[in-house]
């Protein structure tokens, strides 16, 4: 019942949204109700772990199967929670937006696909759902048109490629083992040949790396996610990418198993997981440094979000209980802080109409809730106590060091440095500094839009203080996957490897903050002046002179780094497209337009066929 509702409700939502496509109020109400109901049924489903379901019809002689696992529930809770909050925020934000009539339709389609992916019990169901999810993502993003269309097209090409690689992997597994079922495949995997193991690893991990935006397959993400409607940007960046991670977890731990994968020793301690770890670190460093130079708030968050995905992956491939636990926890952290950051930015956009940081500034007084939301988010993002990002990163660093991967840990820390630079730019350019003249009339967003931000702030902080709530589920997932569960207590962990009591850390940190604020209050007060009460190069400014010291925020740094930012990926994408074009060009030159030549081909085909097949007969 609860399980089928997860699928029935979105379908109902899609149908009703299509019927009431012109009635905004009803549409919003229906969808909010549905997302709320989904949360409810999702919680009910916690009692059904281990159950399996089958669709009443089969095709290709295969039945479509589903199963409820802790892993799936962890993901579905994240999906439904964030959906509900995003839906609340969307209520007002999406009103009378152009090109948004099918907003909920595509969103629910994607949701349906995501449910299918996480609950599927076989690769056929998985693939079908995967496709539904990818196309849902595409339509969600593309519907806004304009630059979103271009960005989504890039996503789509990546997504189709990834789906085809995935399909190849699935088909190869089917050809070898004659089954799509996860359960049967995982049994069969223990005695797979090394060649097949490498092939399937490359195909599956490669395919999922696209969706989870692992370097160097990440370049589609920032534009695609940021060009769409802002609530959707928030939603996508907080959860969509993690479905790729789900695929990686599924393949590494459910299908193949760590012990099988670790048979692939490359040199000494460097095994296949280490290789993925290297990519994870690159995913942290390269995009995060790119984030520093973004001028658009959403793009900046997207770039740094890619880096956060790298932390998740790094934790998961570390192989230790701590690391996997940290990786899983970081998914939840990301979910909330990415969302709270982007919803706060969306709140700013709702009032100012832009996300271009060069055009913003000094909004702290005008939109304090958005400021607090963003602040909470970036603290978490930067991995600073007392927010949940700190907890997950602490686990990940610790596991890397304990497992003997110091280089990976160092790489990850370099990433953190860049993250701090990036998020400082974000908060400074939007909320601090001088208020621009045109934003004098800006007000805080209404309460219904504040609500999700407040809830998320609480979660970002609460889940850090009481990580045990989250870890209780993660430990169950780890046991169900045959891994060592992470040792946890309500407010931290206690192991021989060292312990962490978040309650203590939080209290200390909050106390520190209070002291700092008091120092600030006692100190020199700035003088607030209007934008044009200013001068540059001896001239007073007016509206005609576009002067803004937010622009080129890290100009000096950009100058230093510019030669190294070779945009290799953008270039290789271009050359790949060009290569396809060139191949097409060469191939179509076969068709010379000369009919004599064509006639020649026919008889030549006969002669060649006769030569080739003459030996066969």
């Amino acid at each position, binding site marked *: 019942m609860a399980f089928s509702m997860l699928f029935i409700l979105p379908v109902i939502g899609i149908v009703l949204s299509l019927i009431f496509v012109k009635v905004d109020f009803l549409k919003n109400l229906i969808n909010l109700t549905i997302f709320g109901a989904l949360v409810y049924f999702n919680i009910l489903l916690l009692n059904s772990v281990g159950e399996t379901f089958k669709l009443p019809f089969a095709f290709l002689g295969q039945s479509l199967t589903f199963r409820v696992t802790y892993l799936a529930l962890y993901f579905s809770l994240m999906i439904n929670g964030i959906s509900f909050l995003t839906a609340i925020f969307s209520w007002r934000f999406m009103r009378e937006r152009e090109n948004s009539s099918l907003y909920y339709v595509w969103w629910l389609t994607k949701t349906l696909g995501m449910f299918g992916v996480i609950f599927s019990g076989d690769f056929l169901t998985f693939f079908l759902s995967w496709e539904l999810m990818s196309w849902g993502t595409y339509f969600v993003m593309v519907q806004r048109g304009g630059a979103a269309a271009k960005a989504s097209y890039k996503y789509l090409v990546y997504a189709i490629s990834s789906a085809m690689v995935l399909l190849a992997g699935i088909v190869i597994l089917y050809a070898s083992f004659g089954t799509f079922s996860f359960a049967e495949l995982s049994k069969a995997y223990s005695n797979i040949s090394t060649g097949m193991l490498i092939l399937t690893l490359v195909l599956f991990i490669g395919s999922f790396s696209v969706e989870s935006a692992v370097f160097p397959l990440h370049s589609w993400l920032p534009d695609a996610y940021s060009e769409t409607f802002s609530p959707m940007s928030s939603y996508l960046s907080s959860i969509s990418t993690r479905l790729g991670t789900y695929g990686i977890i599924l393949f590494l731990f459910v299908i193949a198993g760590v012990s099988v994968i670790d048979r692939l020793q490359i040199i000494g301690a460097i095994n296949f997981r280490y290789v993925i770890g290297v990519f994870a670190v690159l995913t942290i460093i390269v995009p995060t440094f790119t984030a520093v130079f973004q001028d658009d708030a959403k793009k900046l968050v997207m770039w740094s979000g890619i880096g956060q995905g790298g932390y998740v992956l790094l934790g998961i491939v570390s192989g230790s209980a701590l690391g996997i636990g940290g990786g899983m926890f970081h998914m939840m952290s990301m979910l909330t802080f990415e969302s709270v950051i982007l919803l706060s930015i969306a709140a700013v956009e709702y009032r100012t109409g832009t996300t271009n940081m060069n055009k913003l500034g000094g909004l702290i007084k005008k939109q304090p809730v958005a400021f607090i939301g963003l602040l909470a988010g970036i603290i978490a993002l930067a991995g600073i106590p007392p927010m949940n990002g700190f907890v997950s990163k602490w686990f990940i660093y610790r596991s890397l060091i304990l497992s003997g991967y110091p280089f990976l840990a160092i790489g990850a820390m370099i990433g953190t440095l860049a993250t701090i630079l990036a998020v400082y730019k974000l908060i400074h350019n939007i909320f601090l500094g001088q208020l621009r003249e045109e934003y004098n009339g800006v007000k805080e967003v209404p309460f219904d839009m504040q609500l999700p931000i407040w809830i998320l702030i609480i979660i970002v902080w609460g889940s850090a203080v009481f990580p045990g709530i989250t870890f209780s589920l993660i430990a169950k997932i780890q046991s169900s996957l045959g891994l060592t569960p992470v040792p946890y207590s309500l407010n931290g962990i206690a192991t021989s490897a060292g312990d962490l009591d978040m309650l203590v850390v939080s209290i200390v940190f909050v106390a520190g903050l209070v002291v700092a604020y008091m120092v600030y209050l006692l100190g020199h007060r700035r003088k607030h002046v209007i934008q044009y009460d200013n001068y540059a190069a001896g001239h007073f400014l007016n509206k005609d002179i576009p002067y803004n010291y937010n622009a080129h925020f890290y100009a000096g740094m950009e100058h230093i780094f510019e030669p190294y930012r070779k945009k290799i990926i953008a270039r290789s994408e271009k050359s790949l497209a060009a290569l396809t074009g060139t191949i097409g060009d060469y191939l*179509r*030159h076969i*068709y*010379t*337009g*000369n*009919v*004599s030549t064509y*006639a*020649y081909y026919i*008889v030549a085909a006969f002669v060649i066929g006769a030569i080739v097949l003459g030996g066969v007969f």
Partner: protein
Amino acid sequence: MSNLITIENIVYLASFGLILIGLFIVFSDKNLVKLVIGLDIAETGVNILLVSTGYIQGKTAPIFSRTGLKASQMVDPVPQALVLTAIVIGFGVTALALALVVRLYQKTGTLDVSEIRGLKW
């Protein structure tokens, strides 16, 4: 040497010769009309091959026009029917081809196949 000059060798020589000459024209001649003629020549070669499949040495046309003619004296009528069909079809195609060529010539002013390449790639 003498066993080389048999009916089938003569027929094959004529047939293959026409097919190959016709195809050679199709491959190498630039004039569209000649190309169509080349096709026709090759078709004639094939028709010779086809009609000869029914030939039986020393036998006559399969028409019982007077009493005394026996079936065993007659050649196979089927290939004649086939070749009649093939000829008529070939005729139709050739006529149509020429009509197309005429029309195309009116439009493009050329019969050179290497110039009639408005469509390629």
